[in-house]
């Protein structure tokens, strides 16, 4: 009884805290503060149609860099934690083969999904989506392959290289801002021309960055999946 009572009390207490918020939420009628500035200047400053992307990649680029770092680190960490012993006995349990539907379906779908992912991150500054979303889509393609073929292995070396260099280039692009534009321009997308508003090759480095992010996220998530899919012991 008491074991349930304390959680109950705590959750009720939390409820009251949230209740206070809920009862005091006033619906917004207008943009305020920084959002308004973004809405008014975002397009002209950065040349990105998607304001969220503008914010994510440039205005709050440092956050995104951090975000990428977090994901990278999670991948690294998972690899570290789930590292396997060198001596691996392959004669272990044979995984059951996937069904024919899955195999065939995946063969059909994987290229499409991958392409869709690439589309998402390349068009991140124009339409909803971006590097993370695209990366996730690519990773889901890899996952599908794992499901379809138990013996499927990703090429770790390539993945690592992609991961590393997309990250490094991302950082380098940021640093280029410092080098080209000045001390306050880390991650500034304007080291490349902003181009024509609304086209693919616009918004300076945003598409480039999102491409790198997309590659990076895709490979990282795929590596995480690879690590977590088992074959331990």
């Amino acid at each position: 009884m008491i074991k349930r009572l304390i959680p109950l009390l705590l959750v009720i207490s939390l409820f009251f805290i949230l209740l206070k918020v809920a009862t005091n939420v006033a619906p917004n009628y207008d943009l305020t503060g920084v959002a308004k500035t973004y809405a008014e200047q975002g397009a002209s400053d950065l040349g990105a149609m998607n304001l969220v992307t503008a914010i994510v990649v440039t205005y709050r680029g440092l956050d995104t860099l951090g975000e990428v770092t977090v994901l990278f680190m999670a991948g690294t960490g998972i690899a570290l934690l789930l590292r396997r012993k060198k001596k691996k006995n392959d004669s272990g349990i044979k995984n059951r083969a996937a069904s024919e539907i899955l195999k065939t379906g995946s063969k059909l779908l994987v290229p499409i999904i991958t392409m869709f992912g690439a589309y998402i991150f390349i068009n991140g500054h124009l339409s909803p989506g971006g590097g993370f979303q695209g990366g996730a889509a690519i990773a889901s393609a890899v996952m599908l392959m794992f499901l379809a073929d138990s013996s499927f292995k990703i090429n770790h070396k390539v993945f690592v290289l992609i991961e590393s260099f997309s990250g490094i280039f991302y950082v380098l692009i940021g640093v280029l801002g410092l080098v080209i534009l000045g001390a306050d321009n880390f991650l500034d997308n304007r080291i490349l021309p902003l181009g024509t508003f609304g086209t693919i090759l616009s918004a300076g480095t945003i598409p480039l960055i999102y491409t790198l992010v997309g590659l990076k996220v895709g490979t990282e998530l795929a590596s995480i999946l690879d690590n977590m899919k088992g074959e331990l012991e």
Partner: protein
Amino acid sequence: MNITTIVHITGFALILIGFWGMLTQKNMIKIILGLAIVETGVQLVMVAFGFIDGRTAPILDSAVELSKASSLIVDPVPQALVLTAIVIGVAVNALMLTFVIRLYQQKKSLSINDYKDLKW
């Protein structure tokens, strides 16, 4: 009852449900799920805070007139934040599950009560 309020209430409810799960479930994976639910709730609340009834997404395409953009779109900032929050949440959850995998290998138990070696 407009859409913002509904999302708010849903978000808060998810937070409470998540916490309830964390506080009452003994299975570590369920606790992680509880946390994930809380995160989701928070993310919903965040998005809801940026939402303005009757406006469109912050994408300045043909639907939005550039000069009047600030009166036509919802707040883009919470959306940007949520994006980051989701990614970080994913990373943390993945890592937590990794820990659970490793813990399970050591003790063959998923109950949180079995990991009390360190105390006092």
